[in-house]
């Protein structure tokens, strides 16, 4: 492999990274411009207005939204993880009768667009009496995460060597002990990365929040992002500041956990 190839390759990668990052930079610099102006492109302002971030928090009621989004994530992710891991275990490792069909049923859900079910979901929730509560978003999200969650955990469990299970069975372990004591600890990378993905997706939910929750302050941060645009009738830098603040939690979580996510993806594929 020649030097030229090396440099050309590196140049390509750097370009792609620059293109990926540029939009974030643009919003960041725009957020620092004086409130009410209309900056063009990337343009570091003469007097950076760091106060805009504070203003955005106040005007958009972000404290409330932060709490709301956090509640939703905390309510959804642990439950969804437990459910998906158990189901993935049963389908991928125990190989219960009908496992193939079950998997197909779950994977079918991966192809469903949200628009296909949002309207009946609304009426369903109204009958159940949970509309406009935070559970309006929490419960369907748990259900909607099952396809990917079961698929992901099943892929992990299907690739675990059988001798571990057999040895445990010979020692007299029942199914629950097998699951809880042996396989769950082994599956920690897969579970934690799935958890991070689900947390990010819950945080970023837009359509469900928009339709199922009347009160904008009970939606997710992303769900209220659309409302940002109407409120800031005159203030684009504030809008950008608000957008950045909404992005920040997910970005931080991602940067902290990106090794996990990518490692799990790799692990799933390497074993295959």
């Amino acid at each position: 492999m020649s030097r030229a190839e090396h440099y050309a390759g590196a140049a390509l990668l750097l370009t792609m990274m620059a293109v990926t990052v540029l939009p974030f930079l643009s919003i960041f610099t725009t957020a620092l411009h004086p409130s009410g102006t209309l900056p063009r492109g990337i343009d570091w302002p003469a007097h950076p207005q760091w106060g805009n971030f504070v203003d955005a928090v106040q005007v958009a009621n972000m404290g409330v939204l932060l709490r709301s989004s956090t509640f939703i994530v905390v309510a959804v992710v642990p439950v969804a993880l437990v459910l998906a891991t158990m189901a993935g275990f049963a389908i991928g490792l125990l190989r219960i009768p009908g496992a193939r069909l079950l998997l197909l049923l779950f994977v079918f859900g991966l192809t469903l667009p949200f628009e296909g079910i949002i309207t009946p979901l609304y009426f369903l929730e109204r009958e159940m009496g949970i509309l406009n509560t935070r559970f309006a978003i929490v419960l369907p999200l748990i259900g909607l995460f099952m396809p990917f969650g079961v698929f992901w955990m099943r892929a992990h469990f299907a690739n675990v060597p059988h001798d571990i299970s057999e040895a445990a069975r010979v020692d007299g372990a029942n199914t629950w002990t097998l699951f809880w004591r042996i396989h769950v600890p082994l599956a920690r990378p897969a579970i934690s990365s799935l958890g991070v993905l689900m947390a990010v997706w819950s945080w970023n939910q837009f359509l469900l929040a928009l339709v199922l929750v009347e009160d904008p302050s009970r939606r997710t941060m992303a769900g209220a992002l659309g409302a940002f645009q109407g409120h800031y009738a005159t203030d684009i830098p504030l809008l950008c500041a608000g957008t950045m603040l909404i992005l920040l939690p997910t970005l931080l979580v991602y940067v902290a956990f990106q090794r996990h996510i990518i490692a799990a993806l790799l692990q799933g594929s390497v074993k295959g």
Partner: protein
Amino acid sequence: MTADRVIRRTPLRRGVRRRALIGWLFVAPALLMYTVFVLQPLGLTIQYSLYRWNGVGPATWVGLSNYLTVLRDPDLVGSILNSFKLVLFFSIVPVSLALVTASVIHRVATGRLGGLTRTVLFLPQVIPLVAAGIIWGWLLSLPGLINQALTAVGLGGVTRAWLGDFDTALPAVGLIGIWVLLGFCTVLLLAGMTKIDPALYESARLDGANWLREFLSVTLPSLRYEIGVCLTVTVVAALAAFDIVYVSTGGGPGNSTAVPGIQIYILTFLERQVGLASALAVILMLLVLAVILPIQRLNREDRS
């Protein structure tokens, strides 16, 4: 593998049935949530599609006439065609670009640069699609960054409001999709590449293959599964697109970026034609299946 089969054929029947029952108990909670909150609404959508209903008053049975209305309405059919055009941008381009990027990383930058690239490229996956739409709405506007950059390299004559121009609006939305999905595919393909047996490359090199031949005869075939997953996810993203389009163009200009997701939204909430919206949603789902199933068949790697 065979040892397992032998062991599994000889347990007592009672033990097997009990184990199966316990296994099913493990699946039951997930199945319950999925059935109540996904399958049941799906069934209801199909039911709604057979009625004319405004969401509040009584519903009238109309059988399949909603489906006929959808297929005869040029705007609605046009939205379906638009979403297929988006497949080109959301799916074909990211997968191809990702193949190139992943192979470059795999070959050239296995160290820190590779890891950094992976992390950075995946970033767009982490933000709400709505935010991506807003950000890119800004970048693609007349005074935005894209036009600034084009002017800087001397292409000032090409500048325009990309999302407001009839010919470029859909490709511009496609560009947003590429930005969002490229990282996902790159990471996935890269992971697939790391599991390719280096011995295959060795023998190819011994046969005198250059980079391209290596790529075509070793890399590509080994990545069939990963490419299949990439294609599946991105095709669904294209056909079911809503967030990005809603926020960046709202379906305009004219109907050039109107996709089924937007039309379903308008039909349900602005026109209050729940039956018609449901019919369009069912057609959309059937289309998604029609495209996804062949891809799955093509990539059937037996993973039993």
